[in-house]
């Protein structure tokens, strides 16, 4: 901003000059911004053109049309969106006659599946470990400490290979698998009975199912503790009633020669990836939680003690609620890095996005287009996570929203 000498000829002149100067400055400010944006855009476009030209010179075509070709390969597990029944968007198993685009979707779905489960499980386990490290119990404290130290100080890839080859693949083969109450644990996967809908279109069945949903919503969103207990009770009672009346049935897995069919299953690859990521991420989350608890003023503990609260009540009602408001942004970072770490699934053959990309790039030769899609997908996933975390952060920071 330049200083201008104004001779004091009158107030109006001075005001006009000030207004003009401000306008000029504002225009200059916006012009600079615009110029920077235009220059950045031009650089990106120029870069894209240069790359495309360079590729064309080697006879490599840069085009996304291969996405609609038939895949021609199988994926060991994975669901994708399908348009079989006309207008409705379906969701079913990937098969080799689906398109390449649907293979990408199957990979993204597999990535999200592991990421969501890992986020939930590692938050719970990490918080337990973090609180455990500050426990007054010597055994719990040291156990938590060594778990965290051991996991944090070895590479994730090596932990993953360990979980897969040294643990999960040492489960018994399907012929000698451990079976109890319909659960089959074998090296071909973990099979559990699944609930299947038998109610067809009967009004009673639909009413019961809707009641279940209301109970779930109530459990999550209602502010009154009593209402939530009632919802929880309803969630136990209603499905039991539906099972008894036969609108819901249990589908038990049945072991055959090579694998089991029926029920739902978790493949050994997914189990190993989940174990590795949950333990790894939990140990970092534990450190975040421990650090935040340590950072709380000692007076919080003393005040709780002077009110006569026990240790458990102090942690649950005084310490953790304050901790969670502080740690959420750090948790967000952890969730994002966890989601990106799922790409290590390629090391043990879990068909997540990066693994599927490898197959697609090799079968079609379009590795550059593929990596663009992969990068965009991870970028969007990370954005969604950080948006969700900052939403939760805002909600928690708002005193009125606190329970």
């Amino acid at each position, binding site marked *: 901003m330049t200083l201008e000498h104004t001779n004091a000829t009158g107030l109006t002149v001075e005001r006009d000059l000030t207004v003009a100067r401000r306008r000029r400055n504002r225009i200059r400010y916006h012009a600079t911004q615009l110029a920077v944006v235009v220059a950045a855009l031009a650089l990106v476009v*120029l870069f894209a053109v240069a*790359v495309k030209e360079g590729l064309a010179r*080697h006879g*490599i075509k840069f085009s996304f049309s291969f996405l609609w070709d038939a895949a021609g390969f199988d994926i060991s597990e994975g669901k994708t969106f399908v348009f079989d029944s006309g207008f409705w968007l379906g969701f079913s198993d990937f098969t080799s006659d689906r398109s390449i685009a649907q293979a990408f979707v199957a990979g993204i779905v597999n990535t999200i599946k592991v990421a969501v489960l890992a986020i939930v499980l590692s938050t719970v386990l990490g918080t337990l470990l973090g609180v455990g490290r500050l426990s007054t119990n010597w055994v719990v404290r040291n156990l938590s400490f060594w778990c965290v130290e051991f996991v944090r100080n070895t590479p994730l890839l090596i932990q993953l290979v360990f979980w897969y080859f040294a643990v999960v693949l*040492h489960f018994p083969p399907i012929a000698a698998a451990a079976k109890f109450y319909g659960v089959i644990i074998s090296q071909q996967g973990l099979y559990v009975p699944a609930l299947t809908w038998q109610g067809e279109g009967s009004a009673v069945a639909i009413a019961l199912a809707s009641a279940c949903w209301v109970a779930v919503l109530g459990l999550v969103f209602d502010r009154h503790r009593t209402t939530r207990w009632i919802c929880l009770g309803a969630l136990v009672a209603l499905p039991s009633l539906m099972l008894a009346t036969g609108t819901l049935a249990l589908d038990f897995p049945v072991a055959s020669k090579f*694998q089991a069919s029926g029920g739902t299953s978790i493949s050994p690859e997914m189990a190993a990836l989940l174990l590795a990521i949950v333990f790894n991420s939990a140990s970092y989350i534990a450190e975040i939680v421990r650090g935040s608890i340590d950072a709380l003023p000692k007076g919080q503990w003393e005040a709780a003690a002077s009110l006569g609260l026990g240790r458990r009540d102090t942690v649950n009602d005084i310490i953790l609620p304050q901790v969670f408001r502080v740690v959420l942004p750090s948790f967000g970072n952890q969730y994002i890095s966890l989601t990106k770490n799922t790409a290590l699934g390629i090391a043990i053959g879990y068909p997540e996005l990066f693994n599927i990309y490898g197959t697609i790039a090799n079968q079609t*030769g379009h590795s550059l287009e593929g990596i663009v899609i992969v990068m965009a997908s991870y970028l969007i996933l990370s954005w969604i996570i950080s948006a969700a975390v900052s939403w939760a952060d805002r909600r928690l920071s708002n005193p009125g929203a606190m329970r």
Partner: protein
Amino acid sequence: MNFKHILMAGTFAGAALVASHASASVLDTVKQRGTLNCGTDNTAPGFGYLNTTTGQMEGLDVDFCKAIAAAVLGDASKVKFVTVTDKSRFDAVLTNQVDVVFAHTTIKPARESSIAIDFLPINFYDGTGVMVKTESGVAKFDDLDGATFCTTQGSVTETVLTSAFKARGWTASKVLTYENLEKLFAALNSGRCNAMSTDKSALAAWAGNSPKPADYLILPDTLDKSPFGGFVVANDSRWRNALRWSSYGLFQAEESGISQANLDEKLKSEDPFVQKFLGVGGGYGKDFGLPDDFVAQAIKAVGNYGEIYARNLGPDTKMFLDRKGTPNALWTEGGAIYSPLWN
């Protein structure tokens, strides 16, 4: 335009490297550099692997690298082996990281049409096979309905298996893909995979190198043919021709009975064809931009095709792959190893 080039060089180093040498042939680059960068596998016994007792790279593909170095540079030791994987091998050539790749690569149209590479003559005829553990009691491919098959990522086997399932109407069978053969073999041993599927030569190698080869059974079925060839970057005829005819030279040498052992004797031969073939008093090399004695140099370094095969894959090796009655025999013996006419 110049600015664009600088930009490209800074940000897309691989492509820029090729671009600045767009007009020059790899042949000139190799001769100028004085060494050949050859991409090979180092985990495929019989084709390209590091012999841990001698510390040397060995295999059919490795010998082809040496033969090319001898033909182009006159010295088989002027080859630098760059390890490539099933996934990285194409990018390695496209970015000029290597001059040529010999890495048991199956020749198929999509690879030439969309990856901008050109293949060299077939140097081994393989087929996709399936291996199971003997204790599983499986005797043929059709016993495996519902089984989990494992293969490596980036190989044609992925699509071959899918087609085989479709043809038989199998829906429960699954394909698991691993990064490399080591993990694949470990998964077969642990029981996660009911069957391991890849090229038969690789199956033979892994079974042969295991502590108890009798524990494994390679099923008689061949799911698909799998011809191997080296490859170079596309649209470089001078380089490709030099390499093609160096390879054919190895085939022709076997047909004409010229071997590493009798090379010195053959160099003195009065036969005009042998003289010209070996570059005694003028040969075929000059027009390709190669020394006239390029075939003789290659034979001196690694021997003819038959010798290369016997050393790396034949019945005297752990691979135990007999040429007789397979396409890998010379055409004069009913095989498919065939060189075009040299005269």
